[in-house]
């Protein structure tokens, strides 16, 4: 359902009653495909079309927001305007927005093969092949593979004259393998592949190799001995770098959150990390080494063009991540970080592609291992959780290796890595700026009940004193 410009104008006109200083709308039409296979059997094949309208108004310094079916637009506008009575009642100060350029654009994220042009039969066969690639060892007790594509069409318009239509395809595949040893112990490992783009994702890496990666890690993991818990100096691979950058650091730099609390509050211009450490969030970066990021976004959900934001530069906190309202509060520029999961969610400050890098003189992977000397190599993130107020984190790892006398030696069974954000930022010894494959480091970041695609890829880095297990 593509709405014509005159209808968009009409909806915005309905919003602009007395006292309304700003109004915007998002019209979404998205196609979804989900396929999952377990132990060689197709578990789910589903498709869907979601369409709807979200309307936001800023009236007398307070937000109102409502959503629903596009055809009910008059009712939605009324609901958005009436919801302002609630925010008016509890606001302590007026919301103001930083200026943003008026933009008219129609942008389609480049793709070679539209997922809409690939038959469901071909997609199902691919997922079956991925699942089959995991099988074939007596230790393997359960396998599964899941595929999802989303073909998103979002129209954004505001009363300032911005009109943007974005077409954004996402394609992703995951595989999981569960092994069981003779003693009855089990071990699970997984692998992912995904990007913002089309089905050409599988030209670069065949789907089966995702299954093979999961199988290899599960078989190696079940045979690996456990590691004694305690503090270790560690080298983190690109996925673990990205996970730490996103979860532990990035959330603490979100302009809405940091207004309330957090370990980076009040630290703009101050040293928060070791020298030569930079923290980057970049929605505009599309690919690196021919691999496309998962958090690429031409415009955010307030119509602001995305760009690279250096949150920390050479150890010093330089910027928070902002939408237009938090940018006004922090007297900064909007950084293009306003994102909403669906039309039915309000945009909030979110990350896109986030990583830590060396400001100058990056170290090679070999130099990082040598610098640690004796410790651990942590690879392949398995998600995490952070307490941004206490400043603590707990991350899952996919592989753990022993580093002895500057050499990577034995493999250990993966477990969790925990620590304190600021202490860890200050304990970084060095970073390598060559990215691991970012199509392997994809995730959905959850905040305020919304999950949006993000990339957590980066280069390797060496850190002191991570708590393992």
């Amino acid at each position, binding site marked *: 359902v593509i709405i014509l410009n005159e209808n968009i104008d009409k909806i915005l006109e309905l919003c602009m009653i007395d006292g309304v200083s700003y109004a915007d709308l998002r019209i979404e039409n998205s196609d979804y495909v989900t396929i999952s296979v377990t132990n060689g059997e197709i578990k789910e094949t589903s498709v869907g079309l979601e369409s709807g309208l979200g309307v936001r108004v800023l009236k007398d310094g307070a937000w109102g927001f409502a959503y629903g079916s596009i055809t009910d637009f008059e009712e939605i506008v009324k609901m958005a305007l009436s919801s302002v009575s609630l925010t008016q009642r509890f606001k302590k100060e007026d919301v103001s927005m930083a200026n943003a350029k008026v933009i008219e654009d129609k942008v389609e994220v480049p793709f070679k093969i539209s997922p809409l042009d690939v038959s469901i039969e071909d997609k199902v066969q691919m997922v079956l092949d991925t699942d089959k690639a995991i099988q074939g060892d007596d230790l393997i007790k359960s396998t599964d593979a899941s595929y999802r594509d989303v073909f998103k069409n979002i129209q954004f318009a505001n009363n300032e004259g911005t009109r943007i239509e974005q077409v954004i395809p996402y394609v992703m595949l995951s595989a999981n393998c569960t092994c069981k040893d003779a003693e009855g112990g089990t071990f699970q490992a997984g692998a992912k592949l995904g990007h913002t783009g089309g089905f050409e994702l599988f030209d670069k890496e065949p789907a089966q190799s995702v299954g093979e990666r999961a199988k290899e890690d599960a078989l190696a993991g079940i045979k690996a001995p456990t590691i004694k818990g305690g503090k270790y100096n560690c080298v983190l691979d690109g996925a673990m770098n990205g996970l730490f950058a996103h979860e532990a650091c990035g959330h603490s730099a979100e302009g809405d959150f940091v207004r309330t609390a957090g370990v980076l509050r009040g630290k703009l211009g101050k040293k928060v990390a070791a020298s030569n450490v930079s923290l980057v969030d970049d929605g505009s970066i599309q690919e690196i080494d021919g691999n496309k990021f998962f958090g690429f976004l031409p415009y955010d959900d307030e119509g602001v063009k995305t760009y690279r934001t250096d949150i920390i530069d050479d150890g010093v906190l330089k910027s928070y991540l902002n939408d237009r309202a938090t940018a006004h509060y922090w007297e900064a520029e909007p950084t293009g970080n306003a994102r909403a999961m669906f039309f039915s969610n309000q945009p909030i400050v979110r990350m896109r592609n986030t990583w830590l890098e060396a400001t100058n003189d990056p170290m090679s992977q070999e130099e990082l291992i040598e610098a640690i000397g004796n410790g651990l190599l942590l690879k392949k993130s398995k998600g995490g959780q952070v307490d941004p107020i206490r400043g*603590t984190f707990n991350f899952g790892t996919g592989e753990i290796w022993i580093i002895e006398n500057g050499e990577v030696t034995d493999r250990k069974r993966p477990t969790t890595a925990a620590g304190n954000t600021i202490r860890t930022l200050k304990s970084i010894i060095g970073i390598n700026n060559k990215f691991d494959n970012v199509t392997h480091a994809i995730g959905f970041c959850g905040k305020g009940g919304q999950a949006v695609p993000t990339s957590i890829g980066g280069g390797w880095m060496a850190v002191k004193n991570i708590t393992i297990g």
Partner: protein
Amino acid sequence: MNMEQMTIHEAIKYGIKYAKKQKAKHVEGHGSSITSVGLEVEKGRPSVSNGVNKGCSFRVIYDNNIGFAFTTNLTQASIEQSIKSAIGNAKVRGADSVKLSFPESVPSTNKVEFDLSLLEVDISDIGDYYDQLREPCEASSLNFLGAQIMYSAGDMIIHNSSGLEVEQKIGFIGGGAFLLSLKGLIPSWGGEFTGSRYLNKLDWSDLGHRCVSEVKKVEGPKTINYSGEVPVIFQPDALGGIFGGLLTVLNRMLRGDSLYQKSTYFADRIGEDVAAADFSFIDDGLHEDGLLSSKYDHEGVPTTTLPLIEKGVLKNFLLDNYYATKLETESNGKCSRYGGMGGFNPIKQSPTIGTYTSVVAPGDSSYDEMVQETKEGFSINNLMGVHMSDFASGRFSVTGSGHFIKNGEIKYPVQDIAISGDIPSLLLKIDMIGKEQKIGFGTVVPPLRISSLSINSQKMSMKFKSMLIMLKLLTTLKLMKHPIAAD
């Protein structure tokens, strides 16, 4: 082609008729229209969300396999396209190994009331509830970070070609608040969340007071050097809080699909002693205080109060109609359309196995008795990292905060406590069960004491401690404001 929007009833009936015309063997139409209002206020910055999620989804059985499709656009063309897609999805799967059908109509004798006053809630009521919740928080000595009220109510309709016609109202209201304490060297924060299907069961002011009290219990936490196997008391929020507790791992291990795939430790252990003799774990689709309690599950099967583990013995797995058929048994009413990429919008989620209310039967120990019986150990209030657990083996490695216990007494609050173990061993090591259950978001559980678990924790470095002491000094002397939180 008629481009008018149909009502949900019309769309379901048309979809079923159209699917039969397209030679689908069986067809099921589901529709819902759910109004939601959310109010969140952080440090005097309110945001509101107000809307209706409306749409239909269809499952068809064609060539003896199932396909699913949904649409939020209720035109004739969209419904027909959804049916064609669902049939296409079924065809591509090939025939299933067992003969499939959708549930037959079985009248529910379940007594689950829907509080009609939920439908009367309007925006100004939400504001009144927020006022009642915030007052005790703002009156406390703590730093009030924010609060949230969530409301959702509407209709769910399920019809299928076997004659099943279920129409039920669903909804709940809930909320909570978060506060921060700057007492001691290390800031601590926390709060409470609760919800109900009954409007008059929620005492918002009492909830506000409880939020304050919960944070005061953990003010001024310490970090300690500790390594060993000691008794651990898990408080209800660490077992099943809003952010997920250890019982979420157990629930995942007791799903019928995990049983069918033999991907859970508990497969083939029905009838075995898998937990301490006085431990009973139930999934209750009818619980008076359950947010999701309803007469029927999300494919129209009457919901049940299902003992999963009864007095330590593994009794049942959670089943929907599909996996019950695969396992040659009957569904026990545990189909859900919540979760996955659909979140709390049931339209987008293909029906799957889900939980309703996780209940641990009360024991005979008070919390104080549990503490008194602990020579040295920990009482854990909340956990981080549960979702990264291994759901096949139940192995977990999490970080918690709570209290250190010595000689039967709570000594002081602690944080950054690394706890590791696995669910099968943990269940067998439950040696005390609390007699007071706490009603949470989807859980009704008492505290549990585990006789021994592996604990690891490290004290903060002297350098970091010196920084915190300096900060404390400067803020106490009012030479600077504490940087961690706004006024």
